[in-house]
């Protein structure tokens, strides 16, 4: 029952869409499709794809478990210096990922500030393991989740939380049953950003976790190696990564999202 969409909004929206999609179309057009089936069914690619999906999903779970509470703390508590904390949380975004990887090595590496004790006391060594990939991806992707969820929390009406409190709900119950469901669209948006960023993560991963096929070689690393040997194959690999992620996102999001409109 609403009027036609206004040109002043639709025009930039369409330009924006074209800006994002035309380059992808370019990739699709120029890709050497003939090599696709061979790539798709090669063992290494299968392994890398599987590893990518698993690691990105695990990293996303880590981010959700740690990041959503962090977002809540930033949005709802009255900590002093929240402004600075909030800015600090965005820092891994700005850090070139390779430097992020170096930072992780400095802290969690075998000679790292924390890592040396992990190694000495528990025999745990994170770099160059699949767990390391998950950590590196989580480090890079978490700020996306935190900032999206915090934005959603700030836009949510806190009076519903008050209503829950008067019903005897602790902050935790209120958070779980009232706050979280009401900011679900924001959490979903953040999760998508986080997962996608983790899936595409390269610099921190190769620096912190290395590039061991089957263990730490995710798709972006495979793309990097393919660029060394066969640039066309690299593009095909990227497209595979794209298609899989589009399929996953298109499949999942509409299931999760049941908001207004």
């Amino acid at each position, binding site marked *: 029952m609403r009027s036609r969409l206004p040109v002043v909004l639709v025009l930039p929206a369409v330009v924006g869409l074209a800006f994002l999609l035309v380059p992808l179309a370019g990739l699709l057009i120029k890709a050497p499709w003939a090599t696709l089936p061979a790539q798709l069914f090669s063992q290494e690619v299968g392994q890398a794809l599987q590893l990518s999906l698993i690691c990105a999903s695990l990293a996303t779970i880590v981010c959700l478990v740690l990041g959503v509470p962090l977002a809540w703390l930033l949005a709802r508590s009255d900590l002093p210096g929240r402004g600075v904390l909030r800015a600090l949380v965005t820092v891994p975004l700005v850090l070139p990922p*390779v430097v992020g*990887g*170096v930072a992780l*090595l*400095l802290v969690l*590496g*075998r*000679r*790292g500030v924390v890592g040396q004790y992990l190694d000495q006391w528990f025999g745990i*060594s994170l*770099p*160059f393991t699949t767990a390391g990939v998950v950590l590196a991806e989580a480090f890079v992707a978490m700020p996306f989740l935190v900032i999206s969820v915090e934005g959603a929390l700030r836009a949510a009406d806190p009076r519903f939380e008050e209503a829950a409190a008067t019903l005897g709900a602790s902050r935790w119950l209120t958070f779980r049953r009232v706050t979280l469901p009401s900011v679900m669209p924001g959490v979903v948006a953040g999760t998508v950003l986080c997962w996608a960023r983790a899936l595409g993560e390269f610099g921190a991963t*190769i*620096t912190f976790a*290395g*590039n*061991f*096929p089957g263990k730490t070689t995710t798709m972006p690393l495979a793309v*990097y*190696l393919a*660029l*060394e*040997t*066969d*640039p*066309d194959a690299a593009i095909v690999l990227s497209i595979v990564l794209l298609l899989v992620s589009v399929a996953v996102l298109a499949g999942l999001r509409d299931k999760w999202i049941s908001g207004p409109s």
Partner: protein
Amino acid sequence: GTTQPSTSGGEITVFAAASLTESFQQLGEEFEAANPGTKVSFNFAGSSALAQQLNQGAPADVFASAAPANMKQVTDTGTITATPTTFAKNTLQIAVPKGNPGKITGLADFAKGDLKIALCAEQVPCGAAAKKVFAAAKITPSPDTLEQDVKAVLTKVSLGEVDAALVYRTDVQAAGDKVEGEDFAEASSAVNDYPIAPLAKAPNAATAKAFVDYVLSEKGKKVLAAAGFTAP
């Protein structure tokens, strides 16, 4: 602990420069075939990243670097105590897009302002080498971009974004038929060495030494030569 005795028979980990990907994968397979019971796994990345990782205690047996500078970063910290050996050399070539649309004939064309030229940045080996070459040829190039690695340069050449670039011959060879290489005389004034060495605390020192030897052997040289490297 960091120096457990090898328990998994002959398994070693080789940290190798990304430009060695193809040849070392082949060498690894041949080495495994020649020494049953051994297994070689690789960690391919930029030499500087590998050096960082090694200095942070990465569990590796062998380091093959694309530049002596990165090797030096590792020997400086004592992570490698053995003297590195040069196992391959690489020289520069002029790379042009298929069909040479810029009509590049020699190094002198790099000074033309109207052509699009890509070079490596001075900080990376191919850039340092290019600087030496231009100094030797007394040419002041007018680059449009100083790329951070050879692959980035080659991407631009193969897409026709630049008319000419200066890269290693091995890279031209790997780039396939979209890129054509032209040799030039001054190339000999800047040759890049690839050093290799086993790590001081290699978990599997014996196999590590065997692998280094295999790379330096005649069989190794043949594989490397096929990829465009010249022998040391």
